[in-house]
């Protein structure tokens, strides 16, 4: 069996990149994302006794990272929903394409819980089961949120075409 520091180091090597990416998209600057990544793994070090019982390490790590992010924004008392920060600061090439810009706007206007769930699926490619673990909701709720999100996005995206025709 692998020693605890070894196991944590392996988790860090495998997942720190995607966790950093997830955090960086939701933080105003890279330094904050780095700090939150550090806090996430510090939490992992504190919970080493739980490591043998973790069945979905990726989902477990994302759950901790998400918790750290929420705590950070609570402390900052930032009224902005977390996901808005990176959608609004997206670079110019994305905004040049009308459809991408429209989709960006459509995603931004989704209810937070639908957007969070969709992000975990499309951006991080977590499975339904992993998302259920991260968000601590039943898998049926994850499926229904994802379907609702896609339905709403499709509705928003097809509206202009319908009005044009």
């Amino acid at each position, binding site marked *: 069996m692998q020693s605890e*520091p070894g196991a944590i180091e392996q988790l860090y090597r495998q997942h720190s990149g995607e966790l950093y990416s997830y955090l960086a998209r939701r933080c105003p600057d890279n330094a904050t994302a780095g700090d939150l990544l*550090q806090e996430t793994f510090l939490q992992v070090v504190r919970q080493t006794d739980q490591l043998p019982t973790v069945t979905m390490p990726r989902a477990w790590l994302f759950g901790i990272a998400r918790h750290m992010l929420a705590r950070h924004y609570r402390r900052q008392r930032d009224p902005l929903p977390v996901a808005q920060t990176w959608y609004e600061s997206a670079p110019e090439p994305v905004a040049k394409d009308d459809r991408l810009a429209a*989709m960006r706007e459509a995603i931004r206007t989704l209810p937070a819980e639908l957007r969070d769930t969709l992000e975990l699926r499309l951006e991080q490619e977590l499975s339904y089961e992993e998302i259920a673990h991260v968000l601590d909701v039943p898998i049926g709720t994850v499926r229904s949120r994802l*379907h609702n999100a896609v339905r709403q996005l499709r509705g928003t995206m097809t509206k202009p075409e319908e009005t044009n025709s």
Partner: protein
Amino acid sequence: MKPDILERLLMDRALGSLNPDAEVLLTDYLANDLAAAMQARELQETVQLATEVMRNPAPAIETPTQIHQLVWRHRTERVLALAASFVIGVGLTALLIHANPHQENVALVNPPPPTIAKIQPALVKNKIESLPFWSNQRIYLLASAAANSKENVQ
């Protein structure tokens, strides 16, 4: 196929979460249902576009801290916590030690009453009789004997 079941299958397919067997069956079904195939394409496009938006921009990956530094940080925190507990413990003990001598001083200022009368009443009686009538020691021993007899009665 019922429209709501079809929609659910198409959604899961677009989201990349349909199991391979169901996907094969659904593809066969879509080949014979143009409206459903169109719906499938629209959903697929929506999800692809959303994915493109969500994955851009990809932030530059930085690895800010090595894991062994975190382990050391955690260990340092624990050592500091232990040190703090030790200091608090020593402080409390020192406070208690400083408090006790004060009580001892009080005890010295108010010594306990003599118990000679309690221990040897016959010797005390002899001693009282041998002392001069107005001597302080006789008066003191008489008072002690009286107090002692009162306690015995109670």
